[in-house]
Each structure stands twice: as structure tokens, then as C-alpha cells.
């Protein structure tokens, strides 16, 4: 068959060197280099800690399909998301074309199996469109990154080097790849037309069609040269690109699909100190948590490699927003750069037996996290932060590096079961001022009941928050629940004790509470504290089902056991603030809203940042005691968001949120203009008494 141009597989350079040599050498060298680089990059992962991630394969595949292939989280940032989806979809489609091209250099007229005939022609059009869109996305991307420079990508000096040049360079490589293919194909078609041969179909308006049109007047010699030059430039750039990916943030092109597959499936539970070591055997461990780099698990190292440096986590991070010395993005980037430095591509690997705290991370940085989970809810490829932060804290606790502000409450929990060091016998004192209609049974007195109301420390002891406990008790009474409390037998649930790295203390109080709860023989547990809710539900074992009061309320409204009075016409506009441990960590977004909406005539608006984008109030549990370096309080920012939404009442469903919101209202000078109230208090006010 006569061809318009000599294909790379049959061409000669200077008349005596078959270009086939390059067609073979480039891929062979490229693949060899790539294999070597990946092997070097895998070195720290091999030394890392165990982390089982091969369970629930079906669930993992589905998640991978949705989040990696489906790019589900990308449009949360619309502009960047659309550009990324275009590039990603283009990559997926063009990967077949790239493989075809590489083999075309060795085998003229090669077609991938299944891509002959009509399918091949459809694919050909599809990849034309893909290449053109990728080209457009690259141009838009380069202008956006190079000229408009969105703030989200800025790298403050203390965190390292700006990556804009790397980003633009890679966009340039992609541009070169697709352009080469367009010229390669365009020259071919232009030559076919000149020779009067039947040309391949090119979709008008697409890149290859444009190249063919532009080249239609060129001589056959020029076309032949362009055809071959474009081919080999593509070949070289393609393999260079492949080997360049693992050098920086573009490693995610290779690692993010597996990273999503290996994602953490059980939200709300912190990883064990050491996978595979039973809680009863923790005493046998020589060291706790992450101290040096190799103490991370292999998956957490893969996270560092996979970080695309997109900055979404830090953009959503409340600690970063109030200028605490924490930016989740740079935890990843600093650790990645540290791994790159100690495990270089060339030369000797020099793993260092040095603590990360002090070398690349700081104590305040790691204590600044409220474990709100905003970063993890945002990351398009499911990097984990909370488990790493907790592991680092475990390491610090083990070394005695705990700020004085946290030592006191931790010791008080150890001695008294609550962070204020209040007397155990006063844990049930809040019940003394309950209305007569509301009766709370006390298991410590030998009472029996169906349901346990787990109050937890703050609602038991804090003067203001005791009102939440009373409101909760009144709601349970009104619903006709047969319930009781543990009183002095209840200790702090320990949600934050665990998250602040004091695992052994957590294990002690968990064991104590579990025994106390099981002794009551209750069928169900209710709590109004999302932190208690989280740890009882996700981390304690062998307990009866746990319910948050918002769920209890909705259940009882539906069953007709609770009836609510309509809202007074007092001009109040309510907004619901999603507590992190109810929303993001446990997916309870609708129940509290439904409970509010069950009050007829209540005017409710949502803040811009709500549900899984809710903005942390400042943190609960031990975080109330920590004295962070910050420019302002998270709560103050949150109150401003409520104001912006047009609300004058913030409803929360967490005692810690209420503490922080009420403080923030005072600090912002909004007393009288804005108020905060707990969901249970609001519902109690609207209870229709029979």
C-alpha cells in the first residue's frame, strides 16, 4: 500500500541510520529509568510500618471508581476542578494513543487490539477532541498559574520553595505532547491530500485538523521532516515526562489512583498505635507513635508522595485560617521533601535517626490541629491527616513533650475522670435543679433503665453546659424514654484524650466506662455530646447502639411521642452550625436540621460553609485548654459567617461548639445582636407539654 509519508518505523536518518533504533532505544531507556526511579522511591515504604489496606476490596474499588476515575471531589473547586477533569479525562483517552504511537515507531501501521475498523475511527475522533481540550486546558492552566496565580498555591517562605515553575513546566510538557501528535498526524493528512490519497478523517476544528490545514501548503519534504520530528519529540518528551513525574508534586499522576484505593474506610476512629498489636499488648511496644520518618506507615508515606500540592486542605483548615502555625498541605510537602532528601534517586540513602519534631515539624504545629477533619473532607485523593497528627502526638507524649496547658487537664482526667479535676461525686449535681416533671435515674444508686444518657464531662460540670444536660434529660423524659445516668461511675469519654496522643490513659478510661456501661444492662445509649458520640460509637467495642440526641429527637417526632410548639414570631433567623464530630466524622447532617424544621414557622438559613465544609468552632475537649499561637479565634470567624448568612441565632448540637460560639460572640462585641443555643435547649423550649 502506498503511504503518503515514510513512517518512523521505516525511516532513515542521514540515509544510513534507521530511525527504528531510536524508536526502540527511547522506550527501553525510558522504561528502565522509570523502573529504577520507582524502585528508589519505594525504598522508604519498605522500611515503613505495617498498615493493612487490602480489606473490603469491593468497597475500595467502588471508591476508586467514584473518586479517582470519577474525580468526584474535583468540582468542589469549580474552575480548577473542570481544568483537572479535562486533563485527567484527556490523559485516560490519550494513554491508548500514546501507547500506539510508541509502538508505531517500531511497527508501521500498528493498531491496538480492538481499535481497528469503526471503533478505531470513533476512538480517533475521540482522541482528537481529547487532545484539543487538553491543549486548551493547558493554556488556561498556564495562564491561571503563571499570570493570575491564585493565592491558594502560594508557598510561605518557611515552608519551602514555590512550585509554580514546576506546574507551568509540566503543563508545557503536556502541551508539547499533544501538539506533537497533532503535527505528526496533520503532516500525514496534508501529505495524503497532496498525493491524492484518501485522507484519514479529522474532525474539523480540532487540533489535528488545524495542523493539517496549516501544513496543506508545505512541501512533501517539509511534511516528512515534521512528521518524523514530531514523532520523536513526542517519544522523548513522553518518556522524560514519565521519569519526571516522581520528582515532585506530579508523582500524584502515578500514585493517586492507588492512594484512593488504599484510603481509610472507617471514619471517626483513630488508627491503632500499631496495626496488628492488640490493645491489651500495648505495654510491650518499645516506642509509641511517630518519632522519626520511618515510624509512619507505608500508606502515610504514599500520602506524602501523592500530595498534588493543590492547597485545598489548607484552604479549608480552620487552624490555617486563624494563622496557627499549621497548614496541612505543608505537613505533606515537608515530609515528602524530607523523604526525597533522605532517599534520593541517585547516591546513598541516608535515613536519619532523628526526631521529626524539631527537624521539619514543630510542637506547636502538631498541637494546633483540632482534628476537625475539614482537610480530609476536601482532599480529592483522600490524604489522611488526623491519624498522622495523632501518631505524631503519641510520639510527643511518649517523650514527655506536652505543653503545660495540657498536662494539667490530662492529669486531672487520670485522677478524677474529668479535665477540671472536679470531684467524682459531683458529676450528677446538675440533676438537682431539674424540673419536677423530669426524673433522671441514677445507675450508681442501683436504678435500672432501658437507655443510658452518657453526659460526658463538660455537660456534667460546666455551669453553662449543664443546661444542655438538663434540656436533654427533659427531652428524653418528654419522649417517655426510660433512662438513667452513670453519675460518679462515668468518666470522660476520652475522645480528645486519644486524639491528643495519650493512648494509655484513653485505654484506661475506655475500659472503665465500658465496664460501667455494660453493668447497667441498657439497650441503648444516647448522648448530646458529639465527641462522646464519636468515640462511644466508633472506638469503644461491645456497647449497645449509640444515638445522638438530634437523632433521638427526630425519631420521637416521627413516632409522635414529641410534639413541638410553633416558633414565636420574634424576627429570629436561625442557622445551624455542624459540629465536626457529628457531621464530618459521623455523617449526621440532616437530623439536626430536620429537628429544627419540625418547629413550625422557624426561619432557618444555612451558612456558606456548612455540612462537610463546616468551619470548626475552635475545638473541643482538651483543645479548650490548649493555648495556641493564633491571630484570632476560629469561633470569631464562624460567628462572622453566621452574620453574613443573615442569621442572628447560631444553633449547635455540641457543648464545645456552644462554649466557643458564646465566647466568640462576646469577643466580637455582638452580644445582643447574635446568640448561640444548643439544639436540645431550643427543642426543650418548644416542647408541647401534654
Amino acid at each position: 500500500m502506498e503511504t503518503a509519508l515514510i513512517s518512523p518505523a521505516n525511516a532513515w536518518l542521514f540515509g544510513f541510520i534507521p530511525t527504528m533504533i531510536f524508536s526502540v532505544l527511547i522506550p527501553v531507556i525510558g522504561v528502565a529509568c522509570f523502573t529504577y526511579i520507582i524502585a528508589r522511591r519505594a525504598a522508604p515504604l519498605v522500611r515503613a510500618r505495617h498498615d493493612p489496606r487490602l480489606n473490603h476490596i469491593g468497597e475500595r474499588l467502588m471508591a476508586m471508581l467514584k473518586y479517582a476515575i470519577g474525580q468526584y471531589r474535583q468540582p468542589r473547586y469549580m474552575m480548577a476542578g473542570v481544568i483537572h477533569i479535562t486533563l485527567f479525562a484527556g490523559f485516560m483517552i490519550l494513554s491508548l494513543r500514546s501507547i500506539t504511537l510508541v509502538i508505531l515507531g517500531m511497527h508501521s501501521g500498528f493498531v491496538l487490539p480492538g481499535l481497528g475498523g469503526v471503533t478505531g475511527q470513533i476512538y480517533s475522533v475521540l482522541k482528537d477532541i481529547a487532545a484539543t481540550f487538553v491543549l486548551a486546558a493547558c493554556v488556561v492552566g498556564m495562564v491561571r498559574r503563571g499570570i493570575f496565580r491564585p493565592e491558594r498555591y502560594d508557598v510561605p517562605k518557611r515552608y519551602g520553595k514555590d512550585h509554580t515553575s514546576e506546574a507551568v513546566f509540566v503543563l508545557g510538557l503536556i502541551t508539547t505532547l499533544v501538539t506533537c501528535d497533532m503535527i505528526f498526524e496533520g503532516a500525514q493528512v496534508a501529505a495524503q491530500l497532496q498525493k491524492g490519497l484518501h485522507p484519514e478523517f479529522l474532525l474539523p476544528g480540532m487540533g489535528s485538523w488545524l495542523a493539517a490545514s496549516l501544513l496543506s501548503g508545505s512541501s512533501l519534504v517539509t511534511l516528512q521532516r515534521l512528521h518524523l520530528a514530531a514523532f520523536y519529540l513526542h517519544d522523548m518528551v513522553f518518556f522524560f515526562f514519565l521519569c519526571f513525574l516522581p520528582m515532585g508534586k506530579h508523582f500524584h499522576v502515578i500514585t493517586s489512583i492507588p492512594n484512593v484505593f488504599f484510603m481509610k474506610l472507617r471514619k471517626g476512629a483513630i488508627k491503632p498505635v500499631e496495626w496488628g498489636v492488640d490493645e491489651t499488648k500495648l505495654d510491650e511496644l518499645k516506642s509509641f507513635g511517630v518519632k522519626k520518618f520511618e515510624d509512619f506507615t507505608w500508606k502515610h508515606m504514599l500520602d506524602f508522595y501523592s500530595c498534588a500540592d493543590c492547597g485545598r486542605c489548607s484552604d479549608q483548615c480552620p487552624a490555617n485560617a486563624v494563622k496557627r502555625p499549621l497548614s496541612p498541605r505543608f505537613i505533606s510537602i515537608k515530609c515528602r521533601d524530607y523523604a526525597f532528601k533522605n532517599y534520593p534517586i541517585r547516591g546513598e540513602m541516608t535515613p536519619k535517626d532523628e526526631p521529626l519534631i524539631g527537624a521539619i515539624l514543630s510542637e506547636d504545629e502538631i498541637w494546633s490541629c483540632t482534628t476537625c477533619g475539614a482537610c480530609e473532607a476536601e482532599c480529592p485523593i483522600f490524604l489522611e491527616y488526623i491519624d498522622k497528627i495523632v501518631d505524631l502526638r503519641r510520639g510527643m507524649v511518649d517523650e514527655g513533650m506536652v505543653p503545660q496547658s495540657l498536662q494539667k487537664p490530662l492529669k486531672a482526667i487520670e485522677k478524677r475522670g474529668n479535665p477540671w479535676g472536679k470531684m467524682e461525686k459531683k458529676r450528677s449535681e446538675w440533676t438537682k435543679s431539674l424540673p419536677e416533671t423530669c426524673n433522671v435515674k441514677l445507675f450508681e444508686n442501683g436504678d435500672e433503665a432501658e437507655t443510658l444518657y452518657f453526659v460526658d464531662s463538660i455537660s456534667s460540670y460546666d455551669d453553662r453546659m449543664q443546661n444542655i444536660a438538663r434540656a436533654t434529660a427533659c427531652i428524653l423524659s418528654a419522649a417517655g424514654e426510660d433512662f438513667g445516668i452513670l453519675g460518679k461511675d462515668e468518666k470522660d469519654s476520652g475522645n480528645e484524650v486519644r486524639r491528643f496522643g495519650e493512648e494509655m490513659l484513653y485505654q484506661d478510661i475506655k475500659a472503665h466506662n465500658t465496664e460501667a456501661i455494660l453493668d447497667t444492662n441498657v439497650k441503648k445509649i444516647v448522648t448530646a455530646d458529639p465527641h462522646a458520640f464519636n468515640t462511644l460509637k466508633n472506638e469503644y467495642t461491645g456497647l449497645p447502639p449509640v444515638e445522638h440526641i438530634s437523632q433521638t429527637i427526630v425519631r420521637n417526632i416521627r413516632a409522635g411521642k414529641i410534639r413541638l410548639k410553633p416558633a414565636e414570631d420574634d424576627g429570629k433567623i436561625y442557622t445551624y452550625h455542624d459540629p465536626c464530630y457529628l457531621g464530618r466524622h459521623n455523617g449526621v447532617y440532616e437530623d439536626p436540621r430536620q429537628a429544627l424544621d419540625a418547629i413550625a414557622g422557624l426561619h432557618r438559613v444555612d451558612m456558606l460553609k456548612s455540612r462537610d465544609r463546616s468551619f470548626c468552632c475552635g475545638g473541643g475537649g482538651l483543645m479548650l485548654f490548649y493555648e495556641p499561637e493564633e491571630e484570632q479565634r476560629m469561633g470569631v470567624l464562624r460567628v462572622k459567617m453566621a452574620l453574613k448568612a443573615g442569621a442572628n441565632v447560631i444553633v449547635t448540637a455540641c457543648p464545645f461548639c456552644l462554649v466557643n460560639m458564646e465566647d466568640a460572640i462576646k469577643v466580637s462585641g455582638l452580644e445582643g445582636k447574635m446568640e448561640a443555643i444548643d439544639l436540645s435547649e431550643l427543642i426543650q423550649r418548644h416542647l408541647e407539654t401534654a
Partner: protein
Amino acid sequence: MEILVCVKRVPDTAENEIVVNGKGTDIERGDLVYSVNEWDNYAVEEAIQIRDRVGGSVTVVTVGDGDSEEILRREMAMGADKGILLSDDAFNGSDGRGIASILKSEIEKGKYDLILTGAQADDGAAQVGGMLAAMLDMPYASLVNKIETGSGNTIGIGREIEGGNQEMSEIDLPCVLSIQTGINEPRYVGIRGIRKVASVEIPVHGAGDLGIAAGSVGAAGAKVKRVDYFVPPAGEGAEILEGSSDEIAEKLIELLKSKGGIK
């Protein structure tokens, strides 16, 4: 450097409600939780830091009953190398001098370059350190908030003086120092650390081991005896301002102005 730190188990003031008992003989002890005296904890941290800098060992010692072992373990979990419990029924009811003489007997059995005590105890009278130094015939410095170790036979010690100024002195070794809080940031002792030292043997020395005549210490030897506990009647002159935060602030400013507190 061989360092000995004298520590004491006290009711934790942060975690207890201190109430005088009905008879006025003591405070109510039924619901108390105890911990190591805060000043002593700073002294142990300082001793550990010195040992880590210049070498040697840290020993913690306390006079008390079997329950006091708990605080020795906590300080050992912190990093002290050794604990010694001085316990004997004959020690019960000792006054400050009695405690100092019990400690003296133990100290003379060893060879220590530096002896640290807390500046005071939550339930004490800040007297043991000074008496101990006198009994041992060693130089003494109190309220120390800085220690600089050198190579010679002296160390530099600091004390905060009025106006936040710092005073530095040189003191010959061996010596006794009473340590002020704020000299360092004591490290955290977790449950894990305490468990690790749970089975370390702690020697118990009684009056016989120390060669102390039973009548010279304890209630029998005490020259200072506690006679009463009571809650003083509320005095006059206290005023609680009422109203909104703004009103309270305004009233406070007025009051301060009228009394010449601000101009």
C-alpha cells in the same frame, strides 16, 4: 553529678476542694486525690536536665507512708534513676525539723553533689530545705530559678528579684538548693511511662536503717505542734459589682478612679 531530690506527696490543690473537718484537727481527706508537690516536680525536671547535660544520676527520696511510693514512681517515669522511700511509724507527725533530720540521715549514707528540694510544698511551710542544709553543714540557696553548671566545683544559681530582674550567684558544691516553679517546663509523665517503672524495686528505709532514735522524730520529737484549723470569718470591704459587662466595667473604672487607682 550525683543529684538527690527531696519530694513530697501532697493533696493536689487543683483537683480537690479543701474543707476543714468538723473537729478542726485536719482537712477532710476522704475524697482527696494526691500528687507530687508541684515545686518538687520542677526540681526533679531540673535534676534530670542537669544529669543529661553533665552525666551522673538522679535519686528521688521522700518521707511518707506506703502511698508515697506512687509519687516516687511518677518521678522515676519522668527520668529519675532511683527512688528511696523513708517510711516508719515513728516518723508520723514529724515537724519540719523532724523531716529534715530524717532526710539528713539518708543523705549522709550516700555521696551527693547537689541536693534539691521544692521551694515549698502545697501543704507545707517552706522550712525543710534550709534546715536540711544547716544540719548537713552545706551552703544553701533558696527560690532558685536558674542553674548553670560549669566544670569546676561551683555552680551558678539564679533568683528572681523585684521587678522581674535576675540575680546570679555562685555556690560551692555540695550544696542544697530550693527550687522555684518556672525554672523549666517539666515534661509530661504518661500512664505508659508509669507502667514501665511499675515493677522497679524501691528500697524502704526505716528509723533503724537510718540510725534514728525513735523519740527524736515523729510526733514525739516534734517541737512545733498544730493546734487548730478553722475558716476565718469573712471580712468587710468586699463588694460584688452587678449588671451587664459594660455596666460592671464602668462601675469598676469609677471605683478605681475614686480610690486613686487610675487617673
